[in-house]
């Protein structure tokens, strides 16, 4: 009995050690590096930082999120929506999305979804996103005003000309 318990403990320790090693071995790479080198990272655990884009999607193929960094993008599959509890901001015109550090296994051609993408194992918000506000420059406002005045003036001249033609 005693030896059986020791064996179980040993297996548990070994599993934990293996997991830790696996996690520590996950190279942190850029999204660009992953997109440009799919063969290199195929079916390997990777870690990367990127912005959450759009919204979480619950589709016929599972739960998905999309990441973006420097005009590179990638879809990420996740088994449970609970993994997204910490995420609040999703990149759009009005929001700068949360910058997250994710870990997962990259598939050049996932056998389940038949798509290229990552299967998420962990997600951490590194920098919280924010609501974006855009200031309109005075230059733009003035230019808009000037172009409107030009438009209205020429429009009125055209209408006067039309009415003169009609009188003729």
């Amino acid at each position, binding site marked *: 009995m005693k030896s059986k318990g020791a064996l179980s403990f040993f297996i548990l320790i070994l599993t934990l050690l293996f997991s830790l090693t696996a996690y520590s071995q996950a190279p942190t790479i850029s999204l660009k590096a992953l*997109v*440009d080198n*799919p063969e290199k990272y195929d079916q390997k655990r990777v870690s990367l930082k990127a912005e959450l*884009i*759009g*919204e*979480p*999607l*619950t*589709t*016929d*193929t*599972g739960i*998905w999120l*999309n990441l*973006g960094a420097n*005009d*590179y*993008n*990638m*879809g990420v599959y996740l088994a449970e929506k609970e993994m997204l509890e910490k995420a609040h901001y999703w*990149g*759009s*015109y009005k929001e*700068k999305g949360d910058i997250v550090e994710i870990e997962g296994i990259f598939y050049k*051609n996932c056998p389940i*979804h*038949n*798509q*290229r*993408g990552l299967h998420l194992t962990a997600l951490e918000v590194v920098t919280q996103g924010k609501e*974006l506000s*855009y*200031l*309109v420059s005075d230059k*733009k*406002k003035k*230019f*808009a005003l000037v*172009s*409107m005045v*030009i*438009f209205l003036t*020429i*429009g009125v*001249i*055209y209408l006067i*000309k039309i009415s003169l033609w009609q009188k003729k």
Partner: protein
Amino acid sequence: MIISPTKKDLSTILNLLGRLILGLSFFMLVPLLVAVVMSENSPFFDFLIGTTLSGALGFILLILFPIKKEISWVHTFFTVSLGWLSFSLLGAIPLFLSGHFGSFLDAWFEAMSGFATTGLILVQDLDHMSFSHNTWRHLTMFIGGQGIILASLSILAQARSVAIGFYIGEGRQEKILPNVIGTARFIWKVSFIYLVLGVAAYFLILNRIGLSSVKSIFQAFWLFFAAFDTGGFTPYKQSIAYYHSFYLEVATIIFMILGAFNFNLHFWLWHKDKKEIFKNFETRTFIFTFFSLLLLLYLPFLGANFSGLFRNGFYQLISAHTGCGFTNLEQGVLGGFPLLSLLAVIFAMMIGGGVCSTTGGIKLMRIGIIFKTILIEIKRWIMPAGAVFREKFHHLNNLLVTNKRIKEAFIIFILFIITYVAGALVAIGFGYPGIASLFESVSATANVGLSMGITDPSMPSALKVVYILQMWAGRLEFIAIVVMIGSLLSFFKK
């Protein structure tokens, strides 16, 4: 002898152009309204500037250049050619002001891509673009697809006598109804019905997968414009791959195919004979070319499962053949396709959809006639020397393969092939790989929008200009541009 335009001709052309530009200014009110509704301050000013500058230019042309001559074919060809150029330049103003483009050239590229229903993009940080700018990007495809000129035809009553010139100049060769105004209105009516159906279908799918109701309704409209007008823009950098939805992929396929059908066929199916779809020459040519190319594309993927084949091949080929340019592949996947599969996609892009549809490319009718011509020649060799025979094809009616049809098909075919190759050579000259250069050149000329990665804000400016010209020439099927250049040369020679 070339009929050389006079100053009176130029005045008439610029007057017609002024009317079109006023129409464009009116269209810009749509994104302006979206900016108001969605409280997008900066884009509001972008569109205010765009609409007022375009409107002012339209009025100036109307004031300074009255119609001095009865409108003729040359005027309409000029107007069509200049129409696309001026629309893309003016349409680029609000895009440039958005701050999402590295230069005005990039914004012009995007606008031309929209109006020509191509779908190649140079926009940066697309995922953070405003609702109003996205509305404008997608609306340009609707305007270009449904035909800037067709829209105007419905309004310009005095242009009735030469309306066919606008219509043919725009690369649509067949009339559906006895008069072109009636044709234009039929196209608008059919498009509106499909719009309602398409938007409803896309809304339900998008809302179900998790998009908010507001996003779903906007994106449903955008995706409809992009699919039915075979444009290919999407609000996300990942294109259709962003949504990860099989149902959306199927729904986009349906509207891509509907958009690639000849509008004559739509008319026939709606008002006359539903069986025409099985008998029609273009439909049969499409089935033949599509499945032949699908076989070519699938050969390197043998052993993959159905879902894999659908995602990796079928969708791209439909998108290429209809000239839409949507992709359900993640970034970089297309570039990794085997050579044989890439060639299949390139051939599909080269061919395109039906004449009198929103697609670009050589078109199914011409490809079919070229096949028939080859068949005729083979028969001529086999049959006795004095034998007389006539080759027919069914397109709404039984028609003869005449010398005139063969000549017209070959002229357009050769012009497209020359442009495809010339564009590829330019890109090769800039150091890009051969197959990617051909892919991108065909995609631009045939107004498709699929990309192997050459089209990027960092590409050489000269190449951007070449692609802009290719998109413009491909959209108008060369004729209107050739007529314009020929007439201009003769004007300056005088």
